[in-house]
């Protein structure tokens, strides 16, 4: 039971981090290596907002500040993502490897910016009072922060699903990603859709950043720890499928926790990655594939 909860918790964190990636990588074919740094920006945003409100309103401000910061972090990373798309990424559509490298350059700049502004020392976000306790069910105690993160992930997932499959914007987005020129002929402004899609992906990274701020101290390399797992989750699930990403990240999350009971955590990480890589040899396209007859898919 305890194991199950830990697995669920880790999976949800990976899922939240890879949700944005599933959109930018899966739909737009842009390998955003700066995704981890967007998470870092989100985490720092909640730190800043919390401190601001704490000085104005005292301790209760800090609690409100955290919840408020989730929305603000989304907005901030949304805007930065939009800017990045206009300046850099828009020139790199169709050049996947180059998009990977260019965004890596961006991530170097963002990391250094974080070091310049906040210093190399890690900072802490205080957990709001509502989330500090834990609920006991039977023998296991479920910590509130982790439950909150699971709920947050469920909300985000639902919102993304709704946005992608139930709104006009989502329909346009999928149309552009499937066949750009045809969509343009139908009168869809594909540049605008590209920009919005990338920004939403970045914004989701910001929300993920807020959630990892609850788990530990924040420094300039906090995003780096997630980048490998999130990419593997997206690739394992099958690029371009939301359900695949959900499944991929839960496989990584549960199996990491499972192996951790047997060996140390870093060995467990390595084993999980190796197993996934071996699995990808069997199915290079991932678990869920978009069937296509094209040669270079």
């Amino acid at each position: 039971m305890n194991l199950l909860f830990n697995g669920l918790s880790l999976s949800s964190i990976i899922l939240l981090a890879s949700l944005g990636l599933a959109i930018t990588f899966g739909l737009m074919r842009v390998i955003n290596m700066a995704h981890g740094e967007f998470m870092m920006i989100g985490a720092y945003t909640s730190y800043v907002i919390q401190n601001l409100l704490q000085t104005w309103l005292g301790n209760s401000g800090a609690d409100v500040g955290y919840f408020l910061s989730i929305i603000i972090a989304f907005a901030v990373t949304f805007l930065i993502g939009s800017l990045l798309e206009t300046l850099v990424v828009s020139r790199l559509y169709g050049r996947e490897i180059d998009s990977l490298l260019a965004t890596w350059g961006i991530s170097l700049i963002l990391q250094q910016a974080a070091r310049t502004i906040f210093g190399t020392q890690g900072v802490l976000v205080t957990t709001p009072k509502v989330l500090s306790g834990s609920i006991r069910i039977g023998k296991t105690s479920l910590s509130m922060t982790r439950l909150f993160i699971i709920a947050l992930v469920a909300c985000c997932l639902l919102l993304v699903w709704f946005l992608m499959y139930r709104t006009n914007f989502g329909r346009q987005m999928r149309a552009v990603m499937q066949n750009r020129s045809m969509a343009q002929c139908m009168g869809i402004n594909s540049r605008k859709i590209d920009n919005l899609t990338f920004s939403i992906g970045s914004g989701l990274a910001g929300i993920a950043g807020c959630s990892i701020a609850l788990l530990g101290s924040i420094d300039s390399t906090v995003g780096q720890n997630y980048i490998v797992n999130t990419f593997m989750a997206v690739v394992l699930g099958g690029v371009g499928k939301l359900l695949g990403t959900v499944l991929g990240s839960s496989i990584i999350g549960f199996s990491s926790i499972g192996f951790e009971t047997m060996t140390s955590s870093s060995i467990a990480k390595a084993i999980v990655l190796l197993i996934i890589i071996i699995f990808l040899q069997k199915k290079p396209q991932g678990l869920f594939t978009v069937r296509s007859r094209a040669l270079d898919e």
Partner: protein
Amino acid sequence: MKLLKKNGYNLCFTVIVIALALMPLLLLNGFVKSTTVLFLGKCMAFAIVAIGLDLIWGYTGILSLGHGLYFCLGAYGMGMYLKMVETHGKITDFMQVGGLTELPLIWKPFLSLPGTFLMIFLAPLVVSGLIGYFIFKNRVKGVYFSIISQALTWAAYSIFIALSPYTNGNVGISQIQSVLGSLRGPKNEGNLVTLFYVALVVLILIYALSYFLVHTKFGKILIAIRDGENRTYFSGYCVSNYKNVIYMLSAIFAAVAGALFVNFNGSITPTQMSITYSITMVIWVAIGGRGTLIGAVIGAFLINLCEYNLSSGSMAESWQYIIGLLFVITILFFKGGIVGIVKDQIPALLQKRRSRAEKEGRDHQPIPVKAEE
């Protein structure tokens, strides 16, 4: 001019080699500091990795984000040999701390120098051969390969840290002398100079081998794979085998470079294996110019020299900004890197200007044809 165009790359490499060969002489006369020479030695190791990366990325179109792994395989092998020279073949202190009483079997071949050399070739060969065989056979390509190589390196990185009784975890192998003995201090300048020339010879050999390779039919097929993988398949070539061979070769280059590096550096840590460091290697190649061997060499030397001079002192903070920005701009606008700018973009610009000038000149002249009519 024609000669320059035809042999420009080799000429450029010769200039670099001569400049490097002069360095020890300057050292003995007291013009340069021994730390600079030591650093240039490391740069040569970096240039060798860069050549290896260029062979698979620039020529074959496989972007590996995990060459730090092979670099470290070579470096750890060499470092372990040097460490055990100091302990006279007995187990090292970190193994004792880790609870080992006997030398682990994996480090046994590194007791002798020939064994170490053999393992520096064999270990990356086997690892990269296995990885390459499965990945290329299943036609994993493009970014998927990059992501998988990145994940593999990360897995290896965490294993190296976790197995601290064998590898000394985060600290790595430190405080070791080179093969020839200590390099520090004015007394040991002779050692430094000898080692420097050894590294230079290795660099020249590897450059020559790569140069030979890319000009054979094999090299042409690599370029064909880069530009049209499926067409190469359909032409009857077994692309996966070609990819695998070049991948193994570049892994060996990286390991050789690692072995040289540890001699100059005197320590090796898992940091050199991390993804960040692996991508830094890619940055050298990208900025120098992918797809040309000389570009890789220039990139490795230039970036490292800049970093060496800038990252200490007041510029330390801005260095990250500079390198990040430089990298982004290179990727966005200058696909050929520095070599591309010199070779293609400047001549194209000059050509444009010349033709425009000619056109303007023509416009100013009276048009005689009309008058005759």
